């Protein structure tokens, strides 16, 4: 039977554009604008899914994307919401979480064993006896989760965008529309956000008067004004998914995450209708009254043919009028109240002869073929208790109108306080931040005019605060009318299955038993029972759970409270967080020369660096060749990534003297000095060399990964010291190379005509300024790799030219580029540490054998006090060099353990095969008692193999430093 109603019903659909799609392999047709759920409903397909735990049949509950009942599987993603997702041509939709077929789910047998799966089952079952978890884990893993991820799918393009507004109004119902209009004064930029496809909220589907005219008239009037106002930007199909500090709002629309900054936020997020709790209240055909109205008005769907309405307010009567107008037979209104409020709507119902049962409840629902087939109506004898008199009414639709909870999530994320008045069953929101207003039903205003008035007031508060207006602020709008919330729409049944939380299949007994197990605090009940932890995050379970916990613990609901509403408000796809992120990548000016030379590039922090030159398959051979060439001829390595910091000014020497461990005041001009940096805790955090180019000018190098921290640290300290200096990070302004090897001078001398490169005129640790290949250069004689070597630093844009000139000039000397990997081997042979590799967050200078780099004559340096104290104590560990003479042993790797017996006594920090020594060499932290040369240490190498290594004095190579001082 086709459930489609004639126009004007169906404001969201275009009947001129039919769309074909399939569900569970069966072909269906809907219209453009139909959601999957509405299109299926039009075809009388109400069963959409199976519940998570007991595989119970589930169908439409809210028609607003607020529940987990409509979660379905699409090819592109699981857990899509059928009442949010629109149909498209040839869309293939499947249900989730069933064994066999959706209609006949074998998993539903679990429901028969529900008494053996009590609340806290997970906690009780898996811990004992010991080892039981291993038995359970495969079963749990198989059953856990919903839907299937299509791993073959090419991910869509998701991205992010910033937006800026003076006022953001969240929710475009009557209050939101009015708030936006009032706020959109001259110069005030307003964003109006709504998660639905059209503006208007409840004006699009709810009934505000007996004639059913007011909602539409008001909507048309407000939308016309919105359209005409250029200060208002509307964003529909957009979810404001959280509130973060300073009104930072993540708004998701399609495949884009908008990062919105708002000076003022007005939350008109409305209220969420709540379910009544009775036996089988989760059957397809049982839905919120607002869901039925959405089906009728938005999609032109008749939600059933024979209806019963259970209500605790007059909205149920309005719902009944809508159903009658749509041709649905309304068999009865079951009013929980003894004395319903009389108004025009209730009188209209009476006039239409609908049967009204006051003081009655729906005690149970019955099903046939996975759908509602009737209800058991009973009188209420006391709170939550039904009498024995039973009347069965057959029906295929049961609408629930028993109350609302405010959509308080964003308010509470902003620090707002949600309170509940047990006597009136009303909520209040207080303690909102200054730049946030709330208006409408979220603030428990149920009268339409009051909602509009409060929205205007909220907007005036916002625009006044922003200085756009100086309007007199209206009086606080008093809450008028009767609360639509029935205080206790909960009716236990001897057979249970009265669902409080549909997501997790939790019943009244589950919540009460949680309190009996000792979890009386609502937050503990949540974690123990998982109530509110499913996809709908307690939107429909929080209030019922709080009421049950309150009763079970003999407290009020106000005392019990509800659980914390953390972001996100609605489930969001990983793509929204992961899409189009930025990871800055840095390249030196010589980058493409490395690529052209066949380098295998690696990323060191943000920088691309050549690891080695040659095929990845020949890695070891390439690295060894590069090492050998540096030792025998000359090599060239790009060191542009090294940090460079200019320290200039009359106090430059004094600054370095305080900042680094060494002494710098008397450092001669034209000399470089090793610079070791410790923090206040005496921990080594960086190193480099400080080159003095004039009395007031030092050029300090720092490690690639550490330079930003060193620079920031310099700024921080001098903010305290107030020395007369300037500090500038010029890392990127200079390209650098290190030309190293016994023939380095022979190459450089061809290109460097204005610097005397002789050992006497330009000794080790000397620095000079001149030109190399006609390029202005700073030349530093250093020996990181243990050979005669020069670091040449030139302005960045000359980098490639410098590289080309040196490679060309060095042909006769056998110059070859070498990469980071060979450099690591070379420095290891020379016994030089790498900060961050051979040090960690606890390394002090003494334990890494760098006590020589500490000046004891100066009064102060950063970390000096701590180091002085550490020097009085016995070190806990020592960094030593070791060799492995057994060439058949697996070479130890970084972080392999050093053992004493079976106890860990240290770890390897560096280890490589040394082409120069012909065996593996490395550094490791060891017990100080094992630090003497000649000591044997045991390393737990790959595969658990114990490798014996011998501690040796550092360096491994050229102990008298003759080669670097050539």
């Amino acid at each position, binding site marked *: 039977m086709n459930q489609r109603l004639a126009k004007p019903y169906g404001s969201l659909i275009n009947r001129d554009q039919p769309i074909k799609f399939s569900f569970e392999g069966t072909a269906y047709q809907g219209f453009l604008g139909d959601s999957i759920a509405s299109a299926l409903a039009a075809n009388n397909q109400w069963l959409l899914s199976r519940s998570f735990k007991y595989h119970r049949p589930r169908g439409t509950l809210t028609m607003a994307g607020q529940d987990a009942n409509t979660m379905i599987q699409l090819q592109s993603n699981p857990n899509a919401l059928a009442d949010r997702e629109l149909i498209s041509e040839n869309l293939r939709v499947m249900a989730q979480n069933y064994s066999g077929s959706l209609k006949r789910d074998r998993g539903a047998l679990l429901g028969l064993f529900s008494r053996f799966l009590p609340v806290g089952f997970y906690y009780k079952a898996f811990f004992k006896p010991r080892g039981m978890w291993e038995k359970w884990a495969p079963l749990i893993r198989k059953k856990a989760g919903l839907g299937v991820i299509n791993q073959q799918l090419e991910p869509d393009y998701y991205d992010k965008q910033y937006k800026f507004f003076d006022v953001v109004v969240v929710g475009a119902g009557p209050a939101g529309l009015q708030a936006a209009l009032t706020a959109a004064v001259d110069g005030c930029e307003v964003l109006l956000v709504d998660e639905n496809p059209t503006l208007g909220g409840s004006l699009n589907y709810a009934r505000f008067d007996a004639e059913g005219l007011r909602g539409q008239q008001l909507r048309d009037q407000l939308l016309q004004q919105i359209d005409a106002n250029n200060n208002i930007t509307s964003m529909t199909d957009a979810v404001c998914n959280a509130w973060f500090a300073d009104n930072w709002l993540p708004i998701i629309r399609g495949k884009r995450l908008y990062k919105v900054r708002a000076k003022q936020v007005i939350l008109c997020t409305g209220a969420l209708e709540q379910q009544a709790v009775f036996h089988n209240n989760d059957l397809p055909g049982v839905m919120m009254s607002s869901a039925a109205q959405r089906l009728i008005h938005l999609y032109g769907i008749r939600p059933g043919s024979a209806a019963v309405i259970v209500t605790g307010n007059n909205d149920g009567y309005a719902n009944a009028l809508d159903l009658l107008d749509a041709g649905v037979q309304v068999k009865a209104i079951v009013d929980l109240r003894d004395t319903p409020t009389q108004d025009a709507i209730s009188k209209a119902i009476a006039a239409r002869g609908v049967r009204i049962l006051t003081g009655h409840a729906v005690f149970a629902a019955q099903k046939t073929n996975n759908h509602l087939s009737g209800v058991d109506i009973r009188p209420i004898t006391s709170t939550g208790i039904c009498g024995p008199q039973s009347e069965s009414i057959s029906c295929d639709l049961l609408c629930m109108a028993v109350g609302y909870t405010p959509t308080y999530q964003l308010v509470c994320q902003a620090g707002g306080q949600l309170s509940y008045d047990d006597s009136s069953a009303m909520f209040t929101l207080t303690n909102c931040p200054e730049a946030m207003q709330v208006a409408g039903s979220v603030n428990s205003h149920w009268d339409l005019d009051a909602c509009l008035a409060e929205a205007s007031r909220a907007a005036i508060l916002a625009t006044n605060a922003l200085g756009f207006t100086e309007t007199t602020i209206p009086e606080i709008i008093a809450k008028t009318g009767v609360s639509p919330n029935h205080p206790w729409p909960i009716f236990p049944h001897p057979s249970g299955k009265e669902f409080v939380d549909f997501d997790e299949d939790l019943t009244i007994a589950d919540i009460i038993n949680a309190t009996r197990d000792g979890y009386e605090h609502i937050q503990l009940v949540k974690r123990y029972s998982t109530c509110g932890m499913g996809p709908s995050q307690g939107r429909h379970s929080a209030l019922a759970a709080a009421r049950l916990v309150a009763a079970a613990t003999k407290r009020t609901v106000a005392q019990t409270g509800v659980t914390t509403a953390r972001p996100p408000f609605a489930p969001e796809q990983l793509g929204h967080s992961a899409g189009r992120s930025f990871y800055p990548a840095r390249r030196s000016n010589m980058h493409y020369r490395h690529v052209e030379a066949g380098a295998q590039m690696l990323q060191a922090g943000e*920088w691309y660096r050549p690891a080695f030159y040659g095929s990845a398959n020949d890695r070891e051979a390439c690295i060894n060749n590069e090492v050998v060439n540096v030792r025998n001829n000359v090599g060239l390595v790009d060191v542009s990534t090294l940090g460079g910091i200019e320290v200039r000014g009359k106090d430059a020497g004094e600054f370095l003297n305080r900042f680094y461990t060494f002494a710098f005041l008397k450092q001669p001009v034209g000399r470089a000095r090793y610079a070791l940096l410790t923090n206040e805790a005496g921990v080594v955090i960086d190193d480099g060399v400080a080159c003095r180019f004039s009395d007031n000018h030092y050029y300090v190098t720092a490690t690639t990964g550490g330079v930003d921290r060193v620079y920031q640290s310099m700024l921080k300290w001098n903010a305290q010291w107030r020395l007369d200096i300037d500090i500038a990070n010029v890392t990127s302004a200079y390209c650098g190379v290190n030309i190293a090897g016994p023939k380095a001078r022979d190459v450089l001398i061809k290109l460097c005509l204005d610097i005397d490169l002789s050992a006497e005129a330009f000794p080790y640790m000397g620095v000079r300024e001149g030109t190399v290949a006609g390029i202005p250069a700073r030349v530093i004689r250093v020996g990181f790799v243990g050979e005669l070597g020069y670091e040449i630093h030139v302005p960045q844009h000359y980098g490639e030219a410098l590289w080309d000139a040196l490679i060309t000039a060095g042909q006769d000397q056998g110059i070859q580029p070498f990469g980071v990997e060979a450099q690591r081997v070379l420095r290891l042979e020379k016994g030089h540490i790498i900060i961050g590799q051979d040090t960690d967050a606890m390394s002090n200078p003494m334990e890494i054998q760098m006590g020589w780099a500490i000046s004891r004559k100066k009064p102060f340096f950063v970390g000096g006090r701590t180091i002085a104290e550490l020097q009085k104590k016995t070190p806990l560990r020592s960094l030593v060099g070791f060799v492995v003479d057994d060439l058949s042993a697996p070479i130890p790797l970084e972080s392999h353990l050093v053992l004493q017996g079976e106890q860990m006594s240290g770890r390897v920090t560096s280890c490589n095969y040394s082409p120069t020594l012909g065996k593996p060499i490395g550094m490791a932290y060891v017990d100080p008692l094992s630090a003497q040369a000649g000591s044997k240490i045991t390393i737990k190498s790959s595969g658990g193999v114990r490798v014996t290594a011998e501690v040796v004095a550092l360096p491994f190579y050229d102990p008298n430093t003759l080669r670097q001082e050539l």
Partner: protein
Amino acid sequence: MTTLLRRSQLSRRHIALGAEFEQIGDTLLVSNYGSSEEIAQAKSLALIDLSTLPRTGFKGAGATTWATSQGVKIPERPNLALLQKDQSLVVRLSYHELLILSNIDPLSTQIERLDSMAVGPQTYTLPRADSHCWLAVTGSQAAEMFSKVCGVDLRPHKFANNAVAQTSVAKASAIVVRHDLGTTHCFYVLTDVSAAEFLWDCLIDAMLEYDGGPVGVASMRELAAEG
């Protein structure tokens, strides 16, 4: 000193896009990429590499005093730019730090003159021509495009001409200066030169949605001349 031609860090990107270069002094600039639509593109949304144009910087407690003594007009407060008589643009980054950008021809004489001088007390030069790349984003959709990569509101009515933001663009630290070309919105973006290719690629990607793309400096000159 060598007289090697100065190429942008992005020169390989430009060559791959079919750029025609023009030589000004010892520098190479992209004149155009061979499209007849580049002026229209620049009015809508375009990216231009100005990295080889002259620029310099001065910093220190005496920097503004010294620069003033050399005839430089200083913006009244930080994060403002001020056009000079020689068409160079002085960007005040803090009370004690100046960045000076050439005009696009480049006919500015002030930069070369200042760079050749001994600076005054408590004044320190900064190698801005080497430390930063210099890109320009032009067109009516520039601010909208920026909102995908930058957390500062750069819309024209919120970010005035000659306003300066020291922020991050695509997570790379950047100086953004609005300096319109006649009636066409123009934003200079200066970021660490080593991240030039990264930023270029990010901006091109962000522009695709608005049909933006690279153009040469010739288009910028046309727009400036249109007034």
